[in-house]
C-alpha cells in the first residue's frame, strides 16, 4: 500500500497524484482539486457543532492518518468475508458481488450477472467505471459537485475517494435479486483512512436492490490504530423507479465511520432504505432524502444496537421540495453498557411542497444504566397543507413487559433480550428484501446475547 499522510499541506499533490494514477479525465481531476480547495477553507467540525453533537471529533488528528490506495490486485473469486457469506445464505443468489478487501487479502473483486450486463446494468468499482464509462460517470457526478454546503468530511471524500462502486440500472430494467457489496476496512497498528464513494443511479421505471456491508477484521485486541472510514453514498431514484438499499456497519472498536447518504427521488420514485449500526468506535451518518418530483416516496429505517463505549450519531434530513410527496423515518436504537447515541431528525417542507406527508419516529431503549440517548427532532415547514408528525421516546425496557415474561418463566436477562429483539423486529419486518429481516435479525440477536 502506498502511503501518504492526510495533512493539509501535502494533500494537494496527493489529490493530483490519485487522479493521475487512476488515469482520470481532466474534469474529474479538476473536481477533486476544487473539492480540496473548499476543504481547506472549511472548518474542522467540533463536538460543539449542532451536527456533530457529542461526537468526539476533536480528538481526531487528521495528520496522523495514512490514506490507502485503491486496490489494484484483482481476486479471481470473492474474498471470504463472514458477513458476505451469511448475507448470501439468507438473501439468496445475488445479482452481483463487489468486495474491497483491505483487511485480509488486499484485493478487489466484482462480478455481475451476465444477462444483466447485457441489458446495460453496470456494477463495478468506481475507478474502473470512470475508465470504462466516462460519459455516464460524468453525468452522474455532475449531480454531486462540491459546494460550500458540504461539510469537511464530505469534501475530504470528494477530493480523495479511492474506493467504492457504481451501480447503474437502465430504463425499465427490473432486478429482483440483490446486489451485495462489501468493504473489509484496513485495521492495524497505524491510523488508516479509506474514502469509499458509492453511486446508485437508476433510470425510469427500473427496480434494484443493494445491500452494502462495511466491516473489518479486527478482533478488538490490537487497538493501537484507528481507521477512518469516510464514505459517500449518492442514490438517484429515477421516475417510477424503485430502489431498495440496506447498509450494515458492523465495525470493530478501531473504526470511526463517517457516512453521508444522499438520495434524490424523481417523479413517483420509491426508496426503501434501511441502515443498521451494529458496531464501531463511533459511527456518524447523515442521511438526506430529497423529494425533487411529485409522487415520490421514501421509507427509511434505522436499527442501531450499541455496546461497550460505542457512540452513534445519526442525522436524518427529509427534504420536500415539490408537492405531493411522502417521507417516513423510523429509527430505533438500543444501547447496552455505556454506549451512547444522538439522533437528530429534520423535516424540511418548502413553501410549494403542498400535500406533503412526512413522519418521523425515534425510539431509544436504554439497556445499560449508564447508556445515554438524545433525540432531537426539528421541523421547518413552510407549506400550509401538510401532514407531519414526529415522536421520540427514551427509556429503559418496560417493567410490565418484563414482569409478564418473568411470570412465563423467562429470567430478567432472557426477558430483556426477547423484548429488545422484538423492538427491532418491528422495524426489520418492513425491509423489502427477501431474507434481510432474518439476516439482520440474527446479527442483532448475536450482539444482544453477547
Amino acid at each position: 500500500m502506498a502511503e501518504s499522510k492526510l495533512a493539509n499541506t501535502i494533500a494537494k499533490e496527493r489529490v493530483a497524484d490519485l487522479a493521475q494514477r487512476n488515469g482520470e479525465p481532466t474534469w474529474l481531476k479538476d473536481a477533486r482539486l476544487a473539492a480540496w480547495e473548499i476543504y481547506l477553507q472549511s472548518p474542522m467540525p467540533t463536538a460543539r457543532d449542532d451536527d456533530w453533537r457529542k461526537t468526539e471529533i476533536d480528538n481526531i488528528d487528521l495528520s496522523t492518518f495514512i490514506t490507502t490506495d485503491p486496490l489494484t490486485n484483482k481476486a479471481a473469486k470473492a474474498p471470504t468475508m463472514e458477513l458476505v457469506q451469511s448475507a448470501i445464505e439468507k438473501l439468496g443468489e445475488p445479482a452481483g458481488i463487489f468486495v474491497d478487501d483491505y483487511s485480509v487479502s488486499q484485493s478487489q473483486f466484482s462480478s455481475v450477472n451476465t444477462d444483466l450486463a447485457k441489458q446495460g446494468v453496470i456494477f463495478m468499482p468506481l475507478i474502473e467505471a470512470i475508465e470504462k464509462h466516462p460519459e455516464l460517470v460524468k453525468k452522474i457526478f455532475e449531480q454531486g459537485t462540491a459546494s460550500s454546503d458540504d461539510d469537511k468530511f464530505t469534501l475530504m471524500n470528494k477530493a480523495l475517494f479511492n474506493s467504492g462502486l457504481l451501480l447503474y440500472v437502465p430504463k425499465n430494467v427490473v432486478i429482483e435479486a440483490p446486489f451485495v457489496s462489501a468493504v473489509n476496512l484496513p485495521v492495524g497498528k497505524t491510523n488508516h483512512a479509506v474514502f469509499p464513494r458509492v453511486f446508485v443511479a437508476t433510470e425510469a421505471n427500473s427496480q434494484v436492490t443493494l445491500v452494502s456491508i462495511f466491516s473489518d477484521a479486527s478482533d478488538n485486541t490490537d487497538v493501537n490504530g484507528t481507521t477512518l472510514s469516510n464514505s459517500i453514498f449518492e442514490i438517484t431514484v429515477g421516475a417510477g423507479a424503485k430502489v431498495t438499499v440496506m447498509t450494515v456497519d458492523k465495525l470493530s472498536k478501531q473504526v470511526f465511520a463517517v457516512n453521508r447518504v444522499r438520495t434524490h427521488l424523481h417523479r413517483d420514485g420509491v426508496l426503501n432504505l434501511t441502515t443498521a449500526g451494529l458496531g464501531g468506535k463511533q459511527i456518524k451518518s447523515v442521511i438526506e432524502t430529497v423529494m425533487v418530483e411529485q409522487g415520490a416516496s421514501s421509507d427509511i429505517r434505522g436499527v442501531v444496537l450499541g455496546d461497550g463505549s460505542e457512540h452513534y450519531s445519526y442525522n436524518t434530513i427529509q427534504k420536500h421540495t415539490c408537492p405531493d410527496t411522502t417521507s417516513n423515518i423510523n429509527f430505533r436504537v438500543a444501547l447496552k453498557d455505556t454506549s451512547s447515541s444522538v439522533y437528530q431528525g429534520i423535516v424540511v417542507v418548502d413553501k410549494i411542497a403542498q400535500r406533503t406527508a412526512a413522519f418521523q419516529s425515534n425510539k431509544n431503549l436504554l439497556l445499560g444504566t449508564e447508556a445515554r440517548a438524545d433525540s432531537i427532532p426539528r421541523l421547518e415547514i413552510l407549506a400550509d397543507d401538510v401532514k407531519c408528525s414526529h415522536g421520540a421516546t427514551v427509556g429503559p425496557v418496560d417493567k410490565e413487559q418484563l414482569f409478564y415474561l418473568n411470570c412465563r418463566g423467562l429470567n430478567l436477562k432472557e426477558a430483556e433480550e426477547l423484548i429488545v429483539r422484538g423492538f427491532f423486529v418491528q422495524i426489520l419486518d418492513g425491509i423489502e428484501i427477501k431474507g434481510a429481516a432474518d439476516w439482520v435479525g440474527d446479527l442483532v440477536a448475536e450482539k444482544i446475547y453477547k
Partner: protein
Amino acid sequence: MTSKNTSKSTAENTSEKVAPLLQIVDLHVSVEDKEILKGVNLTINAGEIHAIMGRNGSGKSTLSYALMGHPRYKVTSGKMLYKGQEVGEMSPDQRAKLGMALAFQYPVAIPGVSVSNFLRKTVNAVRGRDIPVKEFRLELKALMAKLGVKDEFLSRYVNDGFSGGEKKRLEILQLSMLKPLLAILDETDSGLDIDALKTVSEGINVMAQADTAVLLITHYQRMLNYVQPQFVHVFQDGKIVASGGKELALELEDRGYEWVTQESVDESASAQAKANSSSAAATPVGAK
C-alpha cells in the same frame, strides 16, 4: 448421627406431601407504601377450584401480583407457602418454574415477538427442556382448536392490537400449554362474549381435570355457571371477609356485596363448614 439425618429428611418428605399446594397466612402487601392487602388467609389444595369475588379496587389483582412476585408489590408481613415452601423471596420466573401461573387481567403486549416464538420460548423455559418442534406444534394445534384460536394468531405479535377477548383466549392458551399446578385467573371472564366465555371456561375445566388447582378471580357471578368452584371467597378492602361453597356466589349475586359485611355470620359460616371439609380455607365472616 447418620440415622438421625435420614429420619429427619424422611419426616420432611412426608410433611411436603401433606402440605397444601398454596397456603397464604396473614398476608400484608403494600404498593408504594400504601397497604392494599391487610391480612389475607387462604389455603388451596391440589386440584381444587376456588373463586375470589369482590368489587373493583378491593385488592384482588394485588393478591395475584403478590403471589407471582411483582417487584412493585411489597410483602410487609405474612406468608406465602407453595407446597410448604416460602416463595416470597423468589423471582417470578422461579415461581413459574415451580408451577405457579397467572392469567393477567390486563395482558401485556410484546410488539415484535410473535405468539408462536413467545409460546415456544416460555413453554421451554417453564418445562425446563426444549420440546421438539413437531411435538410442540401438535400439542399447540390441538389446544388452539379446542380454544377456538385461529392459526393466524401465531404470527401476530403477542397481545399487540388484540381485542380484549383475544387477549383472554391467549392467556388461557398459554396456561394450558404451561400446565401449572396453580393457575391464578385474574378476571379472565371480563371482555368475553358468551361464546368466548364458554370456550375459555371449557379450557379452564380441562386444566382443572388434569389436576391444576384454580384460583378464579372475578367480580361477576356469570363465569361460575361454567366453571364450578368448590369454594367461594368474598374479598373486601384487602382481605377475605367471607368464605363458603358455590351457593355463596349466588347469594352475592342476589343480595350484593354489602350484605356480606352487614349480616349473617352464621349463614355464611355454616356454608363454609359444609363446603369446606378438607380445606382449612379462609377465615369465616366475623371470625376476626
